[in-house]
């Protein structure tokens, strides 16, 4: 209780039945919050156990998810699909997100205009995933259908752009995913940029640097750890995004490198197959869910740790 900022509380305030009981309540709630995560992992693990015992780690290196073969399951294409869709989404959203966070932390335009942009980006984060899916079906799929053919024609010699092209594809899902992780990147990068001490900026201006020389030479390098954390956390979000991806990616069980053909992710696999699954397939899907949970937890822990280090290194500059 030696906070430094808090005043010393006289000792008689620590006694009394009501006080202790309420404190106990809050303690129990806190313990329950911490236990939630363990409980989630354990309950999924228990239901997934038949599949884990049967397939082991080979589950992640096998291509097998057919209704005609209900005894054999493997998630390699979905694992690859999760990684690729998240990577492309980040590749698109990172430059855009950092540019927006610079826009929000600099004074190019009057504050009300900047606040409008900020509000719009925050609203992007609040729109339900399923509405992105509906919008993607109405807007993004027709666009990809129109440009997919020419792209496959021009760049078809690359395995990445091999035809035939389809509206429901890796590209469609990644485009919408990029839009969905943009708010995460923008919010965290903006916090990192705003936290850069003013003296650094002033020092840079004082030796004659232009605004953008200051941004590229001083502000971005100082805020870099925070931006890295934003990228990692956004990657975690992209990996677990379910509904929009399930509605747009086409859910193909084949392993393909082409961005223009249907693919699948771990989350979209669960969303699509769980409804009609029985027996071993339920267990196999829960195994996939457990793996997805472990991956996102890993990415999120890493992101939080980097974010913490970033905040520490910034506060050291003050």
């Amino acid at each position, binding site marked *: 209780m030696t906070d430094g900022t808090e005043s010393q509380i006289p000792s008689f305030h620590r006694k009394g039945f009501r006080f202790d009981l309420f404190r106990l309540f809050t303690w129990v709630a806190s313990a329950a919050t911490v236990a939630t995560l363990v409980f989630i992992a354990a*309950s999924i693990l228990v239901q997934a156990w038949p599949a884990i015992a049967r397939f082991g780690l080979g589950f992640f290196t096998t291509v097998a998810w057919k209704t005609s073969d209900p005894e054999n399951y493997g998630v390699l294409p979905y694992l690859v699909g999760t990684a690729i869709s998240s990577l492309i989404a980040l590749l698109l959203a990172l430059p855009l997100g950092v540019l927006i966070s610079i826009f929000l932390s600099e004074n190019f335009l009057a504050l009300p205009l900047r606040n409008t942009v900020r509000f719009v980006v925050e609203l*992007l984060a609040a729109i339900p995933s399923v509405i992105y899916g509906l919008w993607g079906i109405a807007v993004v799929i027709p666009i990809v259908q129109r440009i997919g053919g020419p792209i496959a024609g021009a760049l078809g010699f690359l395995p990445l752009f091999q035809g035939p092209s389809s509206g429901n594809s890796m590209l469609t899902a990644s485009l919408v995913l990029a839009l969905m992780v943009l708010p995460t990147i923008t919010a965290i990068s903006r916090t990192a940029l705003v936290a850069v001490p003013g003296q650094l900026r002033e020092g840079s201006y004082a030796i004659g640097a*232009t*605004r953008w020389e200051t941004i590229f030479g001083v502000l971005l390098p100082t805020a870099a750890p925070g931006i890295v954390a934003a990228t990692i956390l956004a990657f975690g979000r992209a990996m677990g995004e379910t509904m929009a991806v399930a509605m747009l990616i086409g859910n193909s069980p084949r392993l393909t490198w082409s961005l223009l053909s249907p693919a699948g992710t771990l*989350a979209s696999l669960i969303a699509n197959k769980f409804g009609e699954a029985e027996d071993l397939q339920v267990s196999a899907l*829960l195994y996939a869910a457990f793996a997805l*949970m472990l991956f996102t937890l890993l990415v999120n822990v890493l992101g*939080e740790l980097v974010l913490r280090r970033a905040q520490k290194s910034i506060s050291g500059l003050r």
Partner: protein
Amino acid sequence: MSTAVFNQNLAPELKAQTARDRLRLGRNFFWTAICVGASFLTLIPLFSIIFLVVSNGVGLLTPSVFFELPPAPGQEGGGLGNAIQGTALMVGIAILIAAPLGILSAIYISEYDKRSMLAAAVRFIAKLLTGIPSIICGMFAFATIVVSTHTKSSIAGGVALAVLALPTILLTAEQALLGVPHALREASYGMGATKFQTIFRVVLPEAVPAIMTGLMLAVARAAGETAPVLFTATSSAYWLSSLMEPTQSLAELIYRFGKYPYPHLIQLAWTASLVLVVLVTLTNVTAQLVFGKRKRR
């Protein structure tokens, strides 16, 4: 910029004296243009989403759409009645579970043992829970409640949504409590109040608007989630008669109807989207007003 606050942000006005300077200033202008352009570029998808949701959704937005059961594929008419009922019920259950848990935890980590291991663990776990894919919340409720009760139900859906709502409520409540000035607590202690009295009579009343905002954000987020209720609650074409039977939700209706080849059902999905988007926008505007006011104070 007239506000003094942004003085440190004012870029110097440089005069070009050599060709190299002109190049530097040109480059400077180029990046400013790119940056402003990119920022306004992101407004386009959002406006496109809002425009489509409103223009496609408003057609069926009549009072009766809120009170009628959804139509069968191929039929006309009908509404979102049971979906709204189901969403309201499940979000209610979720808040009933998550709000006490989240607010009590927030009180513990901001009023009692701030620096304890448990408080650090709560903060860390809450951050991790915000990053857990929503489908995992659904799998959790399936593995526990659906498996043991052998039926999809609003209870199972509500529990899945509670996991999702918990971190939002907890973290905003913590911010709300931390925003209460220390002087208020000290004045309360100075008058001889106990810690319990201080928390309930001084700190909580001051923090209530911000905590309520957190609750509203959690409601808005939970109402729009499909993945947690997809295999734990949905779907149903009828009104609810008990807590232990399959329950329809707005978000799941959007997902299912959006895939049908029937224009009427797709239009109904857009109408459901409009209802959700209005809910989300209203809560975000409120949150902006409440938290914005706090910061200015």
